[in-house]
């Protein structure tokens, strides 16, 4: 399974649905969510589909959970063994430092052995990845219409959204290290950007009157 490819396509509305199904949203949010289920049939089907998926996963994990849990036990045991070996090699040194040294050594080894063959431009940014999707604000949430995740290299990118509130919107494009590479402002609900981005993974933020309201990502694959 190509986990990385799949990760690019994960959508944040799933997170909101999971929070609703887990019962971890506020009563006010829950009311709005239920209202949407009653008014938007496509959305309701999506929620139902997600619940079915959760049931299937629950059933499968229940069936093979002991095997998976066993893997965790054995990996914990391996970690314990390694811990003892490191302790004996470096007496008196705190195990945290030993782990840190080991991690640095392994990382260096990975950089030497793996980096020439890997494509760093597609590595995800963990913090931005967690922020994907609309942010929960007091105002009505923004609904982004465009762009999709995968962009053709020669395309013009159309950023488009629906939002009730008025004001200035700002689209900020970031590379996968989180560095700002382009900032565009508009008072409308869309903005076009002629692509001049290299092959790789990018994130974009939508700000309204300087409030960060949405995070998306763009994948430009020139292969």
């Amino acid at each position, binding site marked *: *399974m190509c*986990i990385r490819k*799949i*990760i690019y*396509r*994960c*959508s944040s509305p*799933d*997170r909101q649905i*999971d*929070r609703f*199904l*887990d*019962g*971890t949203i506020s009563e006010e949010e829950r*009311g709005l969510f*239920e*209202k*949407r*289920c*009653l*008014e938007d*049939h496509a959305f*309701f089907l999506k*929620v*139902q589909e*997600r*619940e*079915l*998926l*959760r*049931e*299937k*996963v*629950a*059933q*499968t*994990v*229940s069936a*093979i*959970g*002991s095997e*998976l*849990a066993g893997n*965790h036990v054995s990996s914990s045991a391996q970690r314990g063994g390694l811990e003892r070996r490191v302790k004996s090699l470096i007496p008196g040194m705190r195990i945290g430092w030993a782990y840190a040294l080991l991690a640095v050594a392994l990382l260096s080894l990975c950089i030497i052995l793996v980096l020439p063959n890997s494509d760093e431009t597609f590595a995800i940014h963990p913090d931005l990845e*967690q922020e994907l999707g609309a942010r929960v604000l007091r105002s009505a949430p923004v609904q982004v219409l465009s762009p999709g995740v995968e962009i053709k290299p020669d395309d013009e990118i159309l950023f488009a959204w629906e939002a009730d509130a008025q004001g200035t919107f700002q689209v900020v494009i970031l590379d996968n290290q989180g560095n700002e590479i382009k900032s565009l402002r508009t008072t409308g609900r869309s903005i076009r950007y002629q692509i001049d981005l290299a092959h790789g993974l990018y994130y974009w933020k939508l700000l309204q009157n300087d409030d960060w309201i949405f995070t998306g990502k763009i994948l430009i694959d020139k292969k």
Partner: protein
Amino acid sequence: MDTERAKTLITAILQGNATAEKEFFEGYQHEVEFLVKLRIGRANPDLPDLCQTVFIDLFKRIRAGEYDSSKGSPGAFVQSTIKFKILDYLKSRHYQERKNQTEFNERSAAHPDEGADHLMIHEEEKKAIEKALHALPEPYQTILVLYYYHQLKIKEIAGRLGMPEQKVSNYKSYALTLLSREIQKAQVARKQSR
């Protein structure tokens, strides 16, 4: 259901149109069942009765002219009816007695597969989920095992892994999305093989 259609049906119900009542019921039936089920627990034996009560009350309110389109959409009207009926139910002595006898709410939360006899997983799907579960990177796999197999709550998992609850919740969602892609692939493969 489409808001405009629902408004038209409400007007027709007020005029005593039985066909409109039937269409209104069919239009919201699945949504109401689903939302009530989530509120009271899927294994709760009162589910069918409560859904029926919601619709009886809904039609009673519509016929009494309680729906005011200037105050909200029909969806909001249905949602508020569900909410208040469930609150009444949760406060009822019947619910308290039943809860003491069966503890279905906790059980259904702890065993999400309970009451899901209708759920049939195709062999290809099952294999796809198993394969995807084994291939899941850390900490996604650990979180799913702790949640579904050890039946820990998000808060407990967060404590065990030393992570914020929000992060655990996000990772769990992420893991499920990864698995859903694999199921979709298996479904496509099954259709193609037919």
